């Protein structure tokens, strides 16, 4: 309710600050603003982003009245099937033949890095929302990439630090055997060691393994206090399920290094209670997030994940910047975005750093026990808020040339 009034008010305010731009003078290429969205729409990551992520983008456009600076806003949606080559080819086609002005990238780090390359070559704005890899703003940073929601560094700093501080000194990792898993394990290992903890071992499992009991018994015989799950989606879900079945949870505490609310929903609170996880957003954070989430719920019969909220926010901020700049020229829009604080249902006081990271608060959460949960999807207690830059890569650590 409140939010419906807020958005037009904010847009009017923004327009007033930056000067009203008459529609006739707005420099919009092709007389239409085109947003492309390429994500996993059907595979193992389709619930955390997927088709509902596309709808979140459309919700943002609808909240702005369907047009910006007098020009219609259109959305193109495609499934990359978790294949980097498909994602890159689609992005190239859209930039070349469809006149896409801005690309929102969904889940899967491999596809995200591939799309970032294409956007850089075509000099188009690329906002990566669903991918985890910190390489997007580090080794492979680009002047046209904005990494919007989270990255492996933020996840590691959040959960790693908090768990060591809470007494979890010795760690064992269960790691998905591909680029994302090893990077998450390495990032977390560094954080754990810096905080005074130690890593006693790790086991790498193949992606989409059918049974985790064998890996879990190895983890248990390590006698470590904490089992760090450096995997995602179905692999995390089945690891947690088997850990409960084999009683591992009685001797070790589980730390999910990348878990989304959909994973917790799928497993149920009985299997996940007490787990720590780090995320960029939680639907039940405050009155504003609740109001927006209930609108989302009416459409999808489930609460939004952090990624879906970030899809919404990224679109809203992009279009607001287009309006303020009076142009959809990528350089002008990005400059506009960089000088404006991001304040919406997703982020408070967020800003885009020179390495492309959108800096905002991250949250350490603990999963509630079933009797503490007041309603469906009421799953987390926010234990700690990492303010501003606390969760992100520092200038001393970065390998991004543009931010050195």
């Amino acid at each position: 309710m409140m939010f419906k009034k807020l958005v037009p008010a904010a847009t009017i305010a923004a327009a007033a600050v930056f000067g009203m731009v008459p529609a006739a003078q707005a420099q919009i290429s092709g007389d239409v603003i085109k947003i492309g969205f390429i994500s996993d729409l059907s595979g193992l990551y389709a619930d955390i982003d997927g088709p509902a992520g596309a709808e979140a983008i459309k919700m943002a456009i609808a909240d702005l009245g369907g047009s910006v600076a007098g020009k219609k806003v259109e959305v193109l949606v495609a499934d990359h099937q978790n294949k980097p080559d498909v994602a890159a080819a689609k992005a190239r086609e859209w930039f070349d033949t469809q006149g896409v002005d801005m690309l929102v990238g969904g889940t899967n780090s491999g596809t995200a890095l591939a799309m970032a390359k294409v956007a850089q070559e075509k000099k188009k704005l690329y906002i990566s929302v669903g991918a985890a890899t910190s390489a997007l703003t580090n080794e492979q940073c680009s002047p046209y990439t904005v990494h919007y929601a989270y990255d492996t560094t933020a996840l590691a700093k959040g959960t790693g630090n908090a768990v060591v501080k809470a007494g979890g000194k010795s760690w064992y990792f269960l790691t998905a055997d591909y680029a994302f898993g090893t990077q998450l394990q390495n990032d977390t290992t560094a954080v754990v060691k810096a905080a005074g903890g130690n890593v006693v071992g790790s086991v790498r499992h193949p992606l989409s393994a059918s049974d985790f009991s064998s890996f879990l018994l190895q983890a248990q015989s390590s006698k470590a206090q904490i089992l760090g799950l450096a995997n995602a989606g179905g692999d995390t879900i089945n690891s947690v399920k088997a850990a409960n079945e084999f009683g591992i949870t009685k001797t070790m505490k589980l730390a999910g290094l990348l878990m989304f609310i959909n994973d917790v929903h799928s497993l149920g609170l009985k299997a996940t209670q007490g787990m720590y996880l780090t995320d960029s957003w939680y639907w039940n954070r405050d009155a504003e997030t609740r109001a927006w989430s209930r609108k989302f719920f009416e459409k999808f019969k489930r609460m939004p994940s952090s990624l879906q909220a970030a899809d919404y926010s990224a679109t809203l901020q992009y279009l607001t910047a287009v309006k303020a700049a009076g142009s959809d020229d990528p350089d002008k829009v990005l400059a506009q975005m960089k000088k404006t604080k991001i304040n919406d249902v997703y982020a408070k006081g967020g800003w885009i750093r020179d390495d492309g990271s959108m800096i905002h608060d991250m949250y350490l959460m603990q999963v509630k026990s079933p009797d503490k949960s007041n309603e469906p999807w009421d799953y987390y207690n926010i234990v700690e808020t990492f303010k501003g830059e606390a969760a992100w890569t520092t200038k001393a650590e970065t390998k991004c040339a543009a931010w050195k």
Partner: protein
Amino acid sequence: MEIFGLPLQAFLGQLLLGLVNGSFYAMLSLGLAVIFGLLGIVNFAHGALYMVGAYVAWFSLEKFGINYWLALILAPLIVGAIGVVIERTLLRHLYRIDPIYGLLLTFGLALIAEGLFRREFGVSGQSYPVPELLQGATDLGFMILPNYRAWVVFASLVVCLGTWFTIERTRLGATLRAGTENPNLVQAFGINVPLMVMLTYAAGAGLAALAGVLAAPVIQVNPLMGSNLIIVVFAVVVIGGMGSILGSILTGIGLGLVEGLTKVFYPEASSIVVFVIMAIVLMVRPAGLFGKEA
């Protein structure tokens, strides 16, 4: 005492887990072997039927409160009926042409089924609880074994041996085998061969569904659960010898054990060890370990 640098107790524990997974492989490859042996169809829809079986169990518990034990009977019947429809409307047109068509058709059916379930239920999956009677775990001295896993091994051995006995040692089984060798002659004896073939496919589908119900409490019920497993199961059938019932049972259990040990000594290779063995077996014995040389 240590075996290959691993304490004996841990070694036994891992072997036992391998046996549990081997039981699933055995039960799934058994259905495939029955269908291929008697119909000559490479049933790529087997993984999807397994997934549908698990979903029938989940759905009937969620919507109608039907418990696990009833689901063990209900799911194979429902999925068997689906099998009848598939056989009558689609598969029976393909018996006289190249087997590749049957493979492509069933592969297509599997993709359609997966797509429909994904649309309806999403990909995160649903949790199915362990039935009350089998909750808890038993301390075996060398490891804590969840009671449900022990039940899986027991149930799958009963099903596998029962199927083997029916086909290899009973009159019904003899008729079935004769019907595949020479359908015309068996028909001449007054036996309804098309009906027999239809029921065989239904039974194979039912076996897949039964495995699905058994798996539901162990792993997350998920539209992709079948496709994650089916390729391994095909490798099991190829290693055992296409169409050999006993071969697929023994190979299933054996490969479960080998895979279990790989998970300890070189975990990264655990998803490919089965295929390495398949390649070696195909080079040395092209008809598979238990297959008859053509």
